[in-house]
């Protein structure tokens, strides 16, 4: 099966792309793909706990994220610099591994497929 990396680079609520990408990642895992997820740039805002998407009629992204282990999507990464720039380090789940830019380059180079590198 293919090694698939989903990149989340935008915040979760201006549009529903993050939700749609996460659904695709879950399906990828169900199909036995080797799925990983990288949060970078403004995408790291997706990692804030205690979101309430339902207040504007959207699915709550942080709840979907916490359901990922159930779908055996457990390779979760974030850009350390993007997290630090936004003073988010306290808010992020320890299950999410922080990567340097060099480590992100290595991660990307190891994939068969990269999905959602745009927004």
């Amino acid at each position: 099966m293919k090694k698939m990396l989903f990149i989340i680079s935008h915040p979760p609520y201006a549009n529903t792309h993050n939700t749609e990408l996460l659904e695709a990642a879950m399906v990828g895992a169900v199909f036995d793909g080797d799925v990983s997820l990288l949060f970078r740039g403004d995408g790291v805002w997706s990692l804030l706990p205690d979101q309430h998407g339902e207040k504007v009629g959207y699915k709550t992204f942080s709840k979907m994220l916490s359901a990922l282990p159930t779908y055996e999507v457990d390779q979760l990464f974030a850009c350390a610099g993007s997290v630090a720039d936004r003073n988010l380090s306290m808010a992020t789940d320890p299950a999410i591994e922080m990567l340097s830019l060099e480590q992100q380059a290595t991660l990307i180079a190891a994939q068969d497929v990269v999905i959602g590198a745009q927004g």
Partner: protein
Amino acid sequence: MKYTLAIHGAPYASQAAQHGIAFAEALLRQKHTIERIFFFHEGVYQALSTRVIPQGEEELLEKWQGLGSQGIELAVCIASGIKRGVINEAERLRYEKNASNLAEHFTLVGLGQLISAINDADRYVEFPS
């Protein structure tokens, strides 16, 4: 005070519907009036009658139509709309398409209706794509 609102973003690609609807409802609560709500650029997709709202998500189309049923004019830019595929029955017939899909309470209008609504209002507030 009289307001003209413009919605430039599509549903699911922007928060323009949530912002525009809540802002319009607050205007009415405060006894302001709404000259026209103008849907421009990707905002025209708000008016598609064929949207199927996922369970548990908000029915933004019904909220727009709720404003429309109170007499608020929901005006879709005809140039922006028809090229993106938002057409009423007249345009369906004119261009021989198989279906029309402009939701009830919305109308297709020219850009002149944006400018005249701006000229006739005290405030113009735009919700981006």
